[in-house]
């Protein structure tokens, strides 16, 4: 299929009027009609049907539209990123981070976008999945990293990026600090800090190990939780991807082996600026075990 055929079809899906679509695309109506016919031949059926003055999408048209729109956006963003590389316009990247998710894993992609768009400004927003989804739909965020198990509105596309394991964070003077690997049983008698925005590992260890733990609830981010670990209020169970500042120590949790998937989400079908599309493509191209690890 051809770029122009897809462009004309997407324009027609918005106007549902051949004359107006031809005007929007700056072509003659017969040229637009011919292009649509060729696309229909290739896709094996009518994409639109015409009844007197009314143009409507067929079922095939409706089912193909999101795919063709996505591909058209990908074509335009590959070209606009090349154009932006020459002109270097100021750009922004607004990224949501779900509970207990570090920005470290995506730093490589931000660095790469900044290397071709030096005037890049970056903003992070930490919040729960529902709030981040709402902000993406309201166009206040470009994309977000979210836990794979959260429910998202249908209008959001999401792609798995990586899996992360749980670690246990203790003060350096803690008896467990020197251990290579610890188990849930080693944590009996400890107070586990249960943060609402810290990834949910602390809430899972009881049910997954079959043991009962003393929990202390803490609102706030994982950074606040680490402050409390440092002050001796308990130990934290967080993602291995978070950078744990000295003098705190991260120990591998051998048993139970808790992991969670992290996905990248963005609004489906929304045209993105070069910085955002470059960032999302970099993340999707690199997803997998080694994601964000140098």
């Amino acid at each position: 299929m051809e770029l122009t055929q897809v462009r004309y079809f997407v324009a027609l899906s918005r106007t549902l009027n051949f004359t107006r679509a031809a005007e929007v695309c700056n072509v003659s109506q017969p040229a637009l009609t011919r292009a649509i016919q060729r696309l229909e031949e290739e896709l094996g059926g009518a994409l639109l049907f015409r009844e007197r003055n009314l143009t409507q999408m067929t079922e095939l048209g409706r089912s193909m539209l999101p795919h063709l729109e996505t591909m058209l956006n990908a074509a335009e963003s590959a070209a606009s990123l090349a154009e932006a590389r020459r002109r270097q316009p100021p750009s922004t990247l607004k990224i949501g981070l779900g509970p207990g998710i570090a920005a470290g894993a995506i730093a490589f992609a931000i660095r790469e976008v900044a290397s071709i768009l030096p005037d890049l400004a970056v903003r992070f927003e930490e919040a729960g999945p529902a709030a981040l989804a709402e902000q993406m739909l309201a166009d206040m965020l470009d994309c977000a990293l979210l836990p794979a198990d959260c429910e998202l509105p249908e209008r959001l596309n999401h792609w798995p990026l990586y899996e992360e394991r749980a670690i246990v964070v203790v003060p350096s003077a803690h008896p467990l600090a020197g251990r290579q690997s610890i188990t849930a049983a080693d944590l009996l008698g400890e107070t586990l800090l249960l943060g609402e925005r810290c990834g949910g590992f602390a809430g899972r260890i009881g049910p997954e190990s079959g043991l009962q733990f003393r929990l202390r609830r803490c609102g706030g981010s994982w950074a606040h939780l680490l402050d409390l670990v440092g002050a001796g209020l308990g130990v934290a169970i967080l993602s291995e991807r978070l950078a744990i500042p000295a003098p705190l120590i991260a120990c591998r949790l051998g048993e139970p082996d808790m992991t969670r998937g992290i996905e990248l989400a963005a609004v489906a079908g929304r045209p993105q600026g070069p910085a955002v599309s470059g960032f999302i493509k970099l993340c999707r191209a690199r997803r997998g075990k080694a994601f964000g690890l140098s």
Partner: protein
Amino acid sequence: MDLQARLDAERARRLENETVRAAYEETVTTLRRNGFLPSVLAEETLFPDFVLPNTEGRLVSLSSLLARGPVIVQFFRGEWCPYCRIMLDALVEALPEIEALGASLIALTPDTGPWVQEAKTTHGARFDVLSDVDCGVGLAAGVVFRVLPLYLARLQAVGIDFPDRHGNDAWFLPMPALFLLDRDGRIAWRFADPDFTRRATPEQILAALRALDPPG
């Protein structure tokens, strides 16, 4: 054995299976009947500039490659495709000669993540393998088509999961076309065939490269 002979032998072996043969014939005859080739960017036209990610987490721009000399843009379907695997081996082998003629080579696939990494590492490719995420550059080059029903059923039956590989459930694929771009980004030579078991051979590529005007 040269590349096309190896591809022919692979096709002959695989088409002994009736289901594979029906899926292959459906694809090739439909694309030929639909007049697919005129959609593909023609010789003498300018290949649109693009930026795509490679397997190392870097963005690769066509124009920065063109600044160094001619560029060969090879579309391929993915490491899952036996004909693409044979072709990638041949390209790896031909790379020193391609580079000796001052050109660079990039291979574009709609696969993402571990699937595109696999293509790069399995063949020990020194050239960049780029993720053409959502087939955008393939669309701009006119090489994308929607996988036909028998072929789709065949892929699903053997567990080749495009939604996972591509990160979308559109079931689009590029025809494995090759474009040789001169320093200005103009298509000096192209190879495109609706029969995905036919590929540009290293001999054809090198001959086309040698036929380019020397830098003035």
